[in-house]
């Protein structure tokens, strides 16, 4: 029931999904499509222009503020944008792209993006899965504990970076107290000045902020796994690990798959945390593609080059979006 709406939508996208699940959707019956009933058919004919009329302002709105800037960006990537003066823009063809492909820093930012994204997926989804498994068991104060766990997710990004800048302060930061408990650490490390440490912290902070969301989604999936399967397996003498491997994991596999794609979208988009913690530094160690585009445009006023890299970023996010849609459709088919 919960997935019905999506299913109806996904089944149009991937027509093959339509076949076997038809009965399920028809059971509730989309009101204005009911084949029987003269009222609906009459109504449908009378108002067939209405949906277009209603969708139009939204499509226009999103086109003006999101789609047309992207289109302009694509156009701009083939030109030499002169923002300050009134000089006309010069068509430079593929020059910006040639520069991009020859630019070692561009490739390095792609590597940083991949590292950051993969690490955030592993850490945030790992923490999300772990906490979901813990919180799936009944215990006292569970509602309170769940609410506390969700706080990082609800916190705005700017104050989050404020907290962590303070916690990581090399002189007074509380994290030094904890770090010095590790044998061999006698100095306060320069947490955001060492490339590896800076990357580790950016990943940790982004994961800390994101994992409650994954945890909650996984928890919802865990609760939909049939208890009967567990009972039956226990009667057959399965141990905890076997239960997890053979029942829990297959039961939440599609959800995990969906979350991996969603997490890669979110961490690919991630800007504010990286920008406010490190600005892409030290020496480009945390400069993701999104950061690099920003720096090119607003630190070096190199708009055309930023636009070319923006096209690369757009193609990547479009690819992930298409994967998301495919995974969603397959997941919907499984639940139909």
């Amino acid at each position, binding site marked *: 029931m919960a*997935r019905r*709406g*999506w299913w109806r*939508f996904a089944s149009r996208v991937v027509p093959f999904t339509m076949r076997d699940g038809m009965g399920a959707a028809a059971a509730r*019956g989309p*009101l*204005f499509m009911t084949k029987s009933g003269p*009222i609906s058919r009459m*109504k449908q004919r009378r108002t067939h222009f209405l*949906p277009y009329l209603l*969708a139009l*302002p*939204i499509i226009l*709105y*999103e086109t003006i*503020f*999101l789609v047309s*800037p*992207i289109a*302009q960006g694509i156009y701009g990537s083939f030109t030499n944008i002169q*923002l300050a003066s009134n000089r006309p823009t010069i068509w430079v063809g593929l020059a910006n792209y040639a520069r991009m492909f020859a630019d070692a820093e561009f490739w390095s930012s792609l590597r940083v993006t991949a590292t950051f994204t993969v690490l955030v997926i592993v850490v945030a989804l790992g923490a999300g899965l772990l*906490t979901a498994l*813990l*919180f799936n*068991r009944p215990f006292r104060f569970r509602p309170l*504990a769940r609410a506390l*766990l*969700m*706080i*990082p997710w*609800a*916190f*705005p990004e*700017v*104050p989050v*970076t*404020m*907290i*962590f800048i*303070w916690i990581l302060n090399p*002189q*007074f930061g*509380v994290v*030094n107290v904890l770090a010095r408990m590790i044998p061999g650490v006698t100095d306060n490390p320069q947490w955001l000045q060492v490339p590896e440490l800076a990357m580790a912290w950016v990943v940790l902070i982004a994961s*800390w902020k994101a994992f409650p969301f994954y945890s909650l*989604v996984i928890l*919802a999936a865990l609760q939909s796994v049939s208890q009967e399967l567990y009972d039956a397996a226990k009667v057959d003498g399965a141990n905890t690990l076997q239960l997890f491997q053979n029942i829990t994991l297959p039961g939440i596999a599609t959800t995990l798959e*969906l979350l991996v794609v*969603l997490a890669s979208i979110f961490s690919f*988009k991630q*800007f*504010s945390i990286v920008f*406010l913690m490190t600005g892409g530094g030290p020496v480009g160690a945390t400069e993701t593609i999104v950061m690099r585009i920003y720096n090119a445009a607003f630190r070096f006023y190199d*708009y055309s080059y930023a636009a070319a890299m*923006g096209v690369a*970023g757009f193609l990547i*996010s479009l690819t992930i979006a298409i994967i*998301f*849609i495919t995974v*969603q459709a397959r997941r919907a088919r499984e639940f139909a």
Partner: protein
Amino acid sequence: MTSTVSTQLVRYTRARDTVGRTLLYIAIIAVTLVTIFPIYWMLVSTLQPNSYTLHYPPPFFPQEIRFAQFGELFAGHPVANWLKNSFLIALMSMLLCTALTVVGAYTLSSLRWRGRSAFGLFLLVTQMLPEVLVLIPLYIMYSRLDLLNQLPTLSVVDAAFALPICIWILKGVFDSVPPEVLDAALVDGCSELSTAWRIVLPLSTPGLVAVAVVAFFAGWNEYLYASILLGSTELMPASVGLTTLKGLSGVQVEQYMAAGMVFSILPVVFYLSMQRYIISGLTAGAVKG
């Protein structure tokens, strides 16, 4: 004989359960503590005079509590003005986004038309675009049209980014209105639009509140666009203002942290109370949290 064996078994199982439960509680407490520690530390650093925090090693528990830093913060810095700007941006973004969301969710949920799935896909893809990609051309467009440095032009962009997820949230809520209710209304002679207005919308009040919350705090929390599209200090919203505090001399740690607390309290309260809806929107309706 058999009874002793089973008694032993029961005793053994119980002991194992007790150990298991204890471990479970320890794990849960550990996870919760680690998770909320940064927030706890922000609270401690806010409430405690900085003579304690600017000391190594800092004490883990507050030694002394004072509230004067909130007054000092508002007196010494234009925080009230920042918050006012944030509020105006968020309010405009909320009104615009909520109005469009009702229309969008209705077309996506209740109406059947060719192109509906394309419309849904369009929204899904716009939701996934990195903000930076749109920012540069938009900045160029705004600077050519002389639209920079205006609160309304910022909030229309914030609304554009919040709109897809808001539509997904409300679509899910509209979907859950029982079809029997709609059938009954139709039989009683309601037209589609008046069914939507008089029946679907009132039944979806919590979803509408969730949409308003998401749209409001999208504007309130937003940093990137605000920092680029608004240059003047007069118009600076709190999200940008907070980041400037760090660089100012004479800003005490507890004021800096107090500013973060003041800014965060509303989004945290509202997001937590609306989390179920927001999660269903973020996953495009795949998951009802």
